[in-house]
């Protein structure tokens, strides 16, 4: 049985590339939300999880990164920290793919067993009565888009459950429609048209279900939705930060 790290209230944040380079507000919000819950937070020295590298055939680079991250993050686990990620693709890759690609690497298994998507982690805290639920009301409707890489995790509905803890929020539409972005996939000239064709279904859903906010956990989905609908898309941690009045 893996050691239960939830009760330690110590978190090693794997920000991944998107929160670090493109959407730092997510990382900043997480720091504040965890602060509200008196969780100790560290940000280990980390590299890209390897998923986008693998997608473009950079196997060597992906392995280097995976081995580095496995080393650094497993050290954090040994020191009693649970690993959390705000990007659903990163959390999936750390959880599922690390032990598959590095079958003989015990550290990868340790990382996999102790990685949580941020909402999954906060819900586990809530289950034990340790989540600060002194939320102020956000009387808004939300269109929530579940990224494919969160749907495939066992905790696929964690973010929805977490958002429902915030008073006033009505999740009026949940979509599991693929956005067609797939990391850099939708950027490539070869895939651009198909990517938009796939996204069209999601765009239609958004148009037919107008809400105050559009929320998703994935940076790629956010960019694709914003490009196609001209609506701002928020990461759920931003709503949580607002609910704490931060």
């Amino acid at each position: 049985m893996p050691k239960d790290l939830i009760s330690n209230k110590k978190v090693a944040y794997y920000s991944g590339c998107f929160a670090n380079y493109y959407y730092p507000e997510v990382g900043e919000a997480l720091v504040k939300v965890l602060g509200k819950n008196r969780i100790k937070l560290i940000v280990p020295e980390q590299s890209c999880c390897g998923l986008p590298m693998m997608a473009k055939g950079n196997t060597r680079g992906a392995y280097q990164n995976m081995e580095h991250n496995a080393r650094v993050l497993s050290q954090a686990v040994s020191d009693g920290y649970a690993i959390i990620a705000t990007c659903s693709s990163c959390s999936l890759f750390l959880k599922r793919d690390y032990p598959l690609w590095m079958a003989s690497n015990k550290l990868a298994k340790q990382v996999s067993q102790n990685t949580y998507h941020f909402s999954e982690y906060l819900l586990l805290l809530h289950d034990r009565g340790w989540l600060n639920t002194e939320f102020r009301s956000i009387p808004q409707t939300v269109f929530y888009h579940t990224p494919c890489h969160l749907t495939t995790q066992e905790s696929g509905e964690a973010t929805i459950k977490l958002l429902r803890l915030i008073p006033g929020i009505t999740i009026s539409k949940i979509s599991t429609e693929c956005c067609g972005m797939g990391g850099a996939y939708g950027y490539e000239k070869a895939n651009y048209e198909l990517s938009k064709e796939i996204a069209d279904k999601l765009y239609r859903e958004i148009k037919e279900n107008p809400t105050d906010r559009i929320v998703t956990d994935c940076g790629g989905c956010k960019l694709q939705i914003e490009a196609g609908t001209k609506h701002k898309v928020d990461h759920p941690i931003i709503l949580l930060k607002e609910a704490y009045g931060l």
Partner: protein
Amino acid sequence: MNKDLPIWIMEPELVQKRDFAARKLLEGGQKKALIPQTPTIDEIKQGLRDIREYTRQNISSLVSELQNNLGQQYRQLKVKLAADNIEAVRYISETSDGIKLISTNNSSTVNQELKPGLLAKGFRVINSYLDEFEVRKKEILDYWDLPGLRDKNLWGSFDVSIRMAGLAETKSKKYLALLGVNAISAEDSTVFFLQHFSNIHNDLNQANKVILVAGLDKLVKSRQDAAFQTKGMGIFGMECVLLGIGPKPTKTPSIAKLAPPSTNKERELHLILLDNGRTDLARSNFSDLFLCIGCRVCNQHCPIRHSFDVDYIWTPKNYLRQFMYGTSSSIDTCLHCEACRLECPLDIDLPLLMWQAKIDHVKKHGRSFQHKILGTPEMLAKLGTALAPLGNWMMRTKLVRIPMELVTGIDRRTNLPRFHSQTFRKWFKKNA
């Protein structure tokens, strides 16, 4: 040599069971009318896994057992073990005796592996499954319109409804039926078909020559296993059938109209056992593909399923197989959303196998220059961060985007994310 090959057809049919239950009820009251309890979806999955795992481990002995049975028992049947599709097409061609009209069922084995070769040899090939549609308007547009049949567990509704012994000596039509089977029992040679309409039964009854095609992966140990596998294909693939039902394509005329009556009174039954890479597959790193029962549920939620203009049911599994065969040059259209993995009743990890195939390909052929650039996302992000905010402005000018498209392959129309001169981790170091 006095028997004929048992050919059993399974259908989604409740009438027989209802009649059976009613009869028992009348005969002996409610206790006798009780129908055995339906297994759960998890039990069905485990049953399928056990069957497929046995086949994967014992493929060679199953082939020998089946060949031995087939050679000794059936007077009507001619058997051909074809090493590959070329050999199978040659056999069909030699067997055809000048008949140029072929009717097929909706089998992937037939339509993907054999049909191209038959067309090249001048045969006219018609998928008679499509001829059964009497639909004016497509009501089920995509998976969100589906009724969630898996949750309803249709196990009890599928059953064997037709049991044939070889081909009946009836008046036939001058065409050749090429039918991919769903399962075949090595123990007693029973052939199983899953039929949603009536095309397979029609072809078995009226084609002058019938050639059954069994990919070696369709072999299972016993008749019981073959029935279980076929039923499994039925329940997990039911919604894929619904997705495929639409107005009849005009390009497929009916075989019944095209085929004249045959003057040849003797009907012929052939069975091709098709290897075409399957034995090697069972021993390779991709042997999990051998567990596939062909239900096509992996197609259901695949976001790219509409993007292939083919005249058979496209599935991600066959997309990978074609890439491995070399009949498709890329698997880069896969988004790696992993929906297929979630759907597969055999838990085949298709996304992982797609990665593996890609890695093998890159090892042999290298990567494009554009993928070399895009394969280093963090380096690009660091470069963008160093150049922000000037970089952000530059990324929005055509002067930069057009040459950038040529070099990196990033489409000039995309909205790139904005870089920040202060990354999160820099901020954290300063503030935490």
